[in-house]
């Protein structure tokens, strides 16, 4: 399966984007997000970017006030996922220019479009920023 979910959470623990690749009920999501936030947000910069949780791992990275947390299977290549997060951030940055939490909040749909071009069914589909952003740019032009 690979990637189980991608979560963006700010440092107050508020969810800013959530995309799951396996179906969880609302209660399960709430519980999971709560547990993860508790576990990861308290960690320091000197600690590693991987947290073992239940029977999977969370690979996470912090950018300013925003935490990007990706749940992956235990045998996933952690560093590859860690850099995939950075690729996502760079892609957002290219589109929004100096992306910040508010951009993602108020353009939730765009964040979803980008992620949709990058991950499908828990697997990475595309890693070229130009190609990822093409559909969004087309749409922006049209409107």
């Amino acid at each position, binding site marked *: 399966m690979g990637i189980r979910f991608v979560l963006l959470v700010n440092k107050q623990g508020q969810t800013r984007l959530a995309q799951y690749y396996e179906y969880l009920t609302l209660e399960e999501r709430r519980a999971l997000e709560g547990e993860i936030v508790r576990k990861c947000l308290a960690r320091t910069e000197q600690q590693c970017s991987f947290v073992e949780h239940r029977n999977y791992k969370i690979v996470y990275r912090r950018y300013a006030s925003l935490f990007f947390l990706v749940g992956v299977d235990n045998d996933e290549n952690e560093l590859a996922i860690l850099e995939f997060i950075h690729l996502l951030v760079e892609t957002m940055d290219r589109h929004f220019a100096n992306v910040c939490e508010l951009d993602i909040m108020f353009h939730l749909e765009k964040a979803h479009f980008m992620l949709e071009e990058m991950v499908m069914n828990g697997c990475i589909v595309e*890693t070229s920023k130009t190609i990822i952003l093409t559909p969004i740019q087309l749409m922006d032009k049209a409107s």
Partner: protein
Amino acid sequence: MASTMRGLSVFISDIRNCQNKEQERLRVDKELGHVRTRFKNEKVFPKKQGLTPYEKKKYVWKMLYIYMLGYDVDFGHMEAVSLISAPKYPEKQVGYIVTSCLLNENHDFLRMVVNTVRNDIVGRNETFQCLALTMVGNIGGREFAESLAPDVQKLLVSSSCRPLVRKKAALCLLRLFRKNPDVVNIDGWSDRMAQLLDERDLGVLTSAMSLLVSLVSNNADAYWNCVPKCVKVLERLARNHDVPQEYTYYGIPSPWLQVKTMRALQYFPTIEDPNTRRSLFEVLQRILMGTDVVKNVNKNNASHAVLFEALALVMHLDAEKEMMSQCVALLGKFISVREPNIRYLGLENMTRMLMVTDVQDVIKRHQAQIITSLKDPDISIRRRSLDLLYGMCDITNAKDIVEELLQYLSTAEFAMREELALKAAILAEKFAPDLSWYVDVILQLIDKAGDFVSDDIWYRVVQFVTNNEDLQPYAAAKARVYLDKPALHETMVKVGAYLLGEYGHLLARRPGCSPKELFTVINEKLPTVSPPTVAILLSSYAKMLMHTHPPDPELQDQIWAIFRKYEGYIDVEIQQRAVEYFALSRKGAALMDVLAEMPKFPERQSALLRKAEDIEADTAEQSATRLRNQQQTSNALVVTDQIPANGSLPVGQLSLVRMPSQNMEASSLDQGKVQGYGAVKKVDPESASSSDLLGDLLSPLAIEGPPSGPTTLEQSQGLETSPTSPGALALAPLSDQPNSIESIGNISERFSALCLKDSGVLYEDPHIQIGVKAEWKAHHGRLVLFLGNKNTSPLVSVQALILPPRHLKMELSSVPETIPPRAQVQCPLDIVNLQASRDVPVLDFGYKFGSAVVNVKLRLPAVLNKFLQPLPVSAEEFFPYWKSIPGPPMKLQEVVRGVKPLSLPEMANLFTSLHLAISQGLDLNPNNLVASTSFFSENCRAMLCLIRVETDPADRSQLRLTVASGDPILTFELKELLKEYLISIPAATPAPAAHPLQPQSPLPSSAPNDDPVLG
């Protein structure tokens, strides 16, 4: 676009400005009410109050936003789905994306759009194609698989299709294949797959590689033709040949595709073609040697992602020794760096490396460094370090490692203590260089982390001490020291009181150890302990009375006063003990007989296990007995459940527990091992029977009426399940055969592997290798043993004897007495299966080499699942049969706890490997799994078995298992077999859910008739 959805922005700002959760909830409720009204009005007055597509889009996004915040959105799904049919791209896009966020594959609404989705997929509009493929790829279910797979396959290989469509088609097909593997016809597809890997576009390749991983993990044989292609892809990337700038990440050609490609290669068992192998190793060598640490974090991470994957692939391929030691050297470097990510991964991969033989010694050199990481401030790193230490522990370093674990235990945080305590206990038991050390370790464990030391750990100590006279004074003295400490954990009180009651008299001449002093130190704890411990203390007092010669009237008065005080105690168990001990202790001589020292625990492998299983199997009539069993503390069955579940037994012993119980062979095998270890002396049959006798003698005291069938059963159960868990005595580490010649590889692991495949090595030592190749057809099996002499001189006095369990007929052709140098002898063995049973035949094998006599008992993989053949059934066949079996004994259901956390596909793979056919989609609940198989035996020929597993996505550690067949024995055996495979092996964290399964505390709460304290 967002700028045009003003309402949405306003809503988001409102939410953002909410001061607290309550305000947020009110604002959300208001918005939901508004959206709901708008949707409703549209249905009632479509003309007058119809929504524009723009409005619908806006509302649907609001719903998604609210859902993301964690609020239930129980309406509007229909509106979201209906946007899929919108003619314009923006609406359609929202429809597809929001639908895949809000709905799951089983949602009814999805059915309504199957046709629209298909039209989008086969249509000419590529953007529509992409949207549809993505949604199906994310949430498509079986229905989509059946109706869309051919179209999706066509798109994937179409030359007229652009990469942006094809890459999505690849992952869409992956989803459909997972939903229904039949949609990919392997014969035709493997060539196409290989062609697909010639692709230039790296986006398509990235997706195709994921698809390949999934296909290969299901059936590696069919896709061997993809191996050279994968190696080519890897070469292209590693040489940075034809890689567009867009796919180069910080100077590294798509690290993700490199990683995925190497992952795909790890699914092939080996790479035979020498040219391909050479090219691959060239690339791997370059990665291993050429990855330097650089300043840029991203570049560094990306290159190390590739490096770690390369390491995994090298390990998998069992590369040449030189390359392996390169890997170990690299990992050794990684585990000592400061950078936490690299150190974490170094530790993790070193643990994986332990699987590869020959490197253990090199890894041991890093022990000090690994121990440093055990004290790291980061729990993730500490966990990895703990796992690695656990994995690398053997008899040479056990003392050091266990001592480190103990030391760390005092400072470790709560989350890790339980795991630590368990691991320390297992290692201490597995690798104890001497038993006094073992006792020390467990007492320290109880002292430092009593809450996390389960009862069976301290029972084990008692059992060892009982069976080893040399150890008794030592253990008693230790217990005495601990009892002086303030704020003692209650478990320590229990074990201390037990040991001093039983062996305190051995210390009589030491200072502070007179009976009275011992009594005083124990009795100080009496007011503060819980009833189960009170019961143990009472027994301990009775023992002290008995041991005191000449009787000390003052002590006697004190103890009698306590007995009398508890005569009216509310807890029946304690009351009964008080009354009985009081009566007994006034009888003088009788006291001596009844309270004589505990006999050695018999290591016979419980006839009870079997009996308890029988009780479980045939239900109705014996329900009273069963009820009793449940109320009465322990029964052997609980022990079977408990062993794997709470993980107090090391891995190696699990297999022994599974051994045929009433088989002489089995217990003699156990004995062989135990003797080899030297810790436990051979059972004295008399002592075993005398303990039974004692049980009989005592039983009328506890249970009115003569000791009838079930009563004796309980007695013996008590004896068994008290400190002695069955099989627990088989303490010998596996490497410790009773022979001077060490086996190569783990015998038990080899056996386990052979249970799931049909050929491989059964046993190997420096002189001989025994291979097995088996063929199974219905209830017949033919197993050929290949005995290969590895030496340049002959092996003599070769003996092979089969000890078949009752349910198998086995005939071994004669085995030659001598195996010539470097020769291989084949011995076919014909097997006929009569009945379902999990008992395992044993090969008693021996030979002489020089002065060394080797004798080993090897389990043969003629196991239950070999007589299964996967038999897929349709819904029309399944349901009538399922319903025709109403319940026990032919249909058994059990909630299994402490289950290995497996995803459903993993579980499906496991079942497939056990020859069960998974019927996908029969059970509408996606968390359930339905399987069927047919079992062959001479008695009943083919018998259909149906299996249903219901999992709880919130808690993967438990599931409900139902097995049905026309034969109660088969049903039971199959259920138990599946349980063995599903339950997690105790190497991992113990499942806390297992606790309710435990007997409350075998010692005190059971009636005295089965109470070893009384012995």
